[in-house]
């Protein structure tokens, strides 16, 4: 029952090798608790990082100050998880009715 309220997944596109290294260093900062969902190996590859709500401001400020472009891939992770859970419950009750 971990909560992901306000967590986002950012899709980040580095435009140089140097920016990729900066992102890797950022991802290794334990206190930010970032979870790399998809890594980038070369410029123009996109990198997806799950960012806890508490680290969002820091991460976005870092990206903007270094001119690294990003977009929000998942606006609120918890809302997607809630939706998924509701779908599963609904499917299960339909199956029970059917049986």
């Amino acid at each position: 029952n971990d909560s992901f309220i306000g967590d986002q997944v950012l899709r980040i596109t580095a435009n140089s090798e140097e920016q990729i290294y900066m992102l890797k260093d950022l991802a290794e900062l334990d206190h930010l608790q970032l979870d790399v969902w998809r890594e980038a190996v070369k410029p123009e590859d996109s990198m997806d990082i799950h960012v806890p709500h508490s680290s969002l401001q820091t991460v976005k400020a870092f990206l903007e100050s270094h001119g690294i472009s990003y977009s929000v891939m998942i606006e609120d992770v918890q809302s997607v998880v809630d939706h998924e859970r509701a779908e599963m419950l609904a499917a299960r009750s339909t199956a029970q009715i059917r049986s």
Partner: protein
Amino acid sequence: TNSFDYANYHTLEEIYNWMDELASEYPHLVTKEQIGSSYEGRPLYILKFSTGGNNRPSIWIDTGIHSREWVTQATGVWMAKKIASDYGNDESITSILDQMDIFIEIVTNPDGFHFTHTKNRMWRKTRSINAGTSCVGVDPNRNWDAGFGGPGASSQPCSETYRGPRANSEKEVKAIVDFVQAHGNIKAFVSIHSYSQLLLYPYGYTSTPVPDKQELHDLAQRAVSALSSLYGTSYRYGSIITTIYQASGGTIDWTYKQGIKYSYTFELRDNGRYGFLLPANQIIPTAQETWLAVKVIMEHTRDNPY
């Protein structure tokens, strides 16, 4: 199993029950076997599809070694049903199963999978306790004895790519190692992950090309082409290290080192909209397109004995 809802995600218990039903529905084709138990004591089950013979050349498929990649377990369920129902009806699958056995491990990391359903939907690793730290779990796709401990895996237990204290330290990994070695006649090994739409072959731990690179590359191209033909899903393919990143201790590097030439790993849909939270309505399209690629690999394995 016809009434099972393949278009939705299911818990471990539901999947294990479904396995029993599949085995009882196809008693002359499907058996459920236990190859070990997980760190927390859950059984590690595989489905064996066999039409007879002793220790035939075989194809291995596993899904969901990273527990949060739910579309992979769901794809495994769909594919297992497809194999069972196609035997005797589809010429290609019938011909494969008349010569070879197929093994599928649908929930390769059951502790992690249970944890994603009950505590943390985003859990990736096993649930083994690491001495000296509160951080739990090992990345089972960094725990194999192939470049173990090298770059592309972490020595930090809190990392999502923690390699573990030693190769095969994870019971979930060791069970497959023991099975593959005891069997001795596995000819293709397909390990399925998500997401990012890739089909990869060894190596991940070194940039040295594999000796069979050209054949593996050409086969990957054909498999991806078949996959894309259904819904136009775009895939990239190549070796792990050149296509995504350096990763040591990975599954298919180990299987290739064991002499299993046709060693591949998939990264299924999507391409960056939902990640590990791919909506359930995409399970069947994902499974259908993946099946086409897996079938190409299986047919090639059947037609090119070694």
